[in-house]
């Protein structure tokens, strides 16, 4: 129970924590010379986290109703929809941050709102699974203590990894941090798209197709390393063709933004 709890919750926590860290580091690096931008950024993040936690609780609470939608595949379809909205907002956010990250840009309502949406939806999506799991455990006959301990350990590992990634990105030079950060954002987008497609396959909205490869012999998904890679780059041992295609498509979508091109291809970085 303990290990199951750790693995299940770690998967959810890691994904949200890493996304939050990368977005925070990228935005901070872009607006590093503007003190107001930092203060404003802090408020946006706090609002996004609060919205995410409230959203996760509400989503978990409404899950029985949501599950009944679309001929009883409401949960899968809604989750997939959230993933697509996250990708779209990530794309718009990157576009809005394209130009000089001066105070006007950082203050722009669009960038702030897309930031809130991405983080809040990511926390809602991952957090609702945790709420559902803990609610299920608390109604069970035994194992509550070990599940709660597992949740605590998973939270500790997930949040610590996020903090270390954030400080790691900040310790790099601005140019390197933005390159790594934007590359990670494009991988997150790919991960989100692949997961969304997987959910739609489960809902029978997309036909099932055979896996392209099987790397479970090398690294299983349900190990700590597998979970870390799953959260970071969307590692899946047996992906189908459509999952791989959607992964690459979402990655390219983020990579096509002027912000990404500016920091990866042009070699020039404006303040």
């Amino acid at each position: 129970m303990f290990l199951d709890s750790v693995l299940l919750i770690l998967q959810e926590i890691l994904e949200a924590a890493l996304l939050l860290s990368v977005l925070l580091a990228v935005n901070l690096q872009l607006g590093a010379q503007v003190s107001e931008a930092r203060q404003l950024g802090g408020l946006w993040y706090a609002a996004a986290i609060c919205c995410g936690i409230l959203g996760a609780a509400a989503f978990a609470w409404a899950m029985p109703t949501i599950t009944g939608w679309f001929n009883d595949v409401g949960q899968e379809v809604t989750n997939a929809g959230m993933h697509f909205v996250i990708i779209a907002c990530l794309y718009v956010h990157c576009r809005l941050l394209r130009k000089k990250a001066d105070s006007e840009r950082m203050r722009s309502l669009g960038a702030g709102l897309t930031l809130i949406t991405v983080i809040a939806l990511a926390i809602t999506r991952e957090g609702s699974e945790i709420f559902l799991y803990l609610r299920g455990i608390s109604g069970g006959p035994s194992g509550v203590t070990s599940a709660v301990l597992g949740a605590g350990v998973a939270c500790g590992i997930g949040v610590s990894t996020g903090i270390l990634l954030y400080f790691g990105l900040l310790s790099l030079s601005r140019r390197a941090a933005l390159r790594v950060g934007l590359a990670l954002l494009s991988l997150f987008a790919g991960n989100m798209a692949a997961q969304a497609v997987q959910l739609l396959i489960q809902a029978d909205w997309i036909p099932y197709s055979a896996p392209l490869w099987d790397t479970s012999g090398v690294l299983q998904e349900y190990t700590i390393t597998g979970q870390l890679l799953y959260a970071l780059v969307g590692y899946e041992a047996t992906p189908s063709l459509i999952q791989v295609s959607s992964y690459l498509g979402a990655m390219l979508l983020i990579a096509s933004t002027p912000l990404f091109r500016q920091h990866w291809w042009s070699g020039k970085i404006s303040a």
Partner: protein
Amino acid sequence: MSSIRRFLIFGALAVLTLFSFIAALRGYQSSMEEAETLFDAQLLDLSRLVANLETTPATRDLRLGNNLAFQVWEHDRLGSASHQAPTTPITSRVQGFEFANFGGFRWRTYTRHDEGHDRWIMVAERSDLRFLLAENIVLETVLPILLGIPVTGLLIWWVVSKGLRPLEQLSEDLQHKPAHDLTPLAASTAPRELKPVVRAINGLIGRLGAALEREKRLSADAAHELRTPIAALKVQLHNLSREIDVHSDSFQQLEEGVDRMGHLMEQLTALYRTSPEQFSEHRVQLDLYALAQETVAYWYPLFQAKGQTLELVGAPAQIRGDPFALDTLLANLISNASKYTPAHGHVQVSVKTLPGGVVELLVQDDGPGIDAAEHSRIFERFYRADHAIEGVPGCGLGLTIVQHVAELHQATVTVGSSSFKTGAAFRVVFPAEGRA
């Protein structure tokens, strides 16, 4: 990195949490494997114990704990069994450990062949119960690690705060160091890591002191050396006025140039005398209104010549201050107002005591005023507002001197719009008596 404290606390806590939790997970896994081995050894012992049982009617339905079961098969006949065991074989007749399902549970089984009696002994233990038992024992070791993290966080916060204290102390010392205090910082009490910083700051202070000393000598020498030739120039100019046409452009420009040079000398001397590093104050109790009256009377002819109105309003207001410095402040504000107010304009000087005992000096005019964008810059040395440059003589030091004098009296000086239709207002607020 926006905060060293935050970086150290969160960074240290994250590293500690990550590695202690991963170590706890590894410990959990290996402890569970150890526990499995231990339980298997117990199962093996149980099978040896059962092998010593004689088959009697009493051993056909022996009561054991709910988590254990056994069977003794003599050829195809069930000889002895525990009350939970089924009537069919628990597992296959292959010696060793296995898993089996019966009675609605999953069981860990061990089968041994008793060659002496040609019997098969099968023992079983409920998998879920032994897992729970093992997990409860192992988690007892994980719990303190989890509970220890908040305590560790507090300790890290305390240690980091303690470690950063000398840095904060240095920052406070520098912030609270008076502008004229150029004594070096104490390097002996600073920790080893901060000693180079303190030494560098002391070097900077030393160089600043030397530069100020040079500036002081230069100003004093320049004032002394130039005062005499300028006075001589004025005398020669006066003599010249008897010999040539005083209305000629050349003479007028020469006279203006000499006046401007004389004014610049006076202002430079005043700036030097009122700078916080040089000022030797002689504070006395004085009436700011009375002082303003004297200054207004002194400057009145200038206003009269331009057809301007100079008005003094208010009431006696007591402050502690240096009369010479305050006279310089008033003279600069009043002459500035005259300069930037057109002919026939209006200048008002007001002195009053506000609630709380603070004294306000307000000099306002109905001139063109000052753009808000320039408010922060007009107190800089040699800065002149755009509109001021055209046709108005000045050197850009007057307001710097005003600010110096205000700072010497712990007063604040601000610029805003006047209560006339147009114009600027300079407000100097002196602290209440006893707080200055």
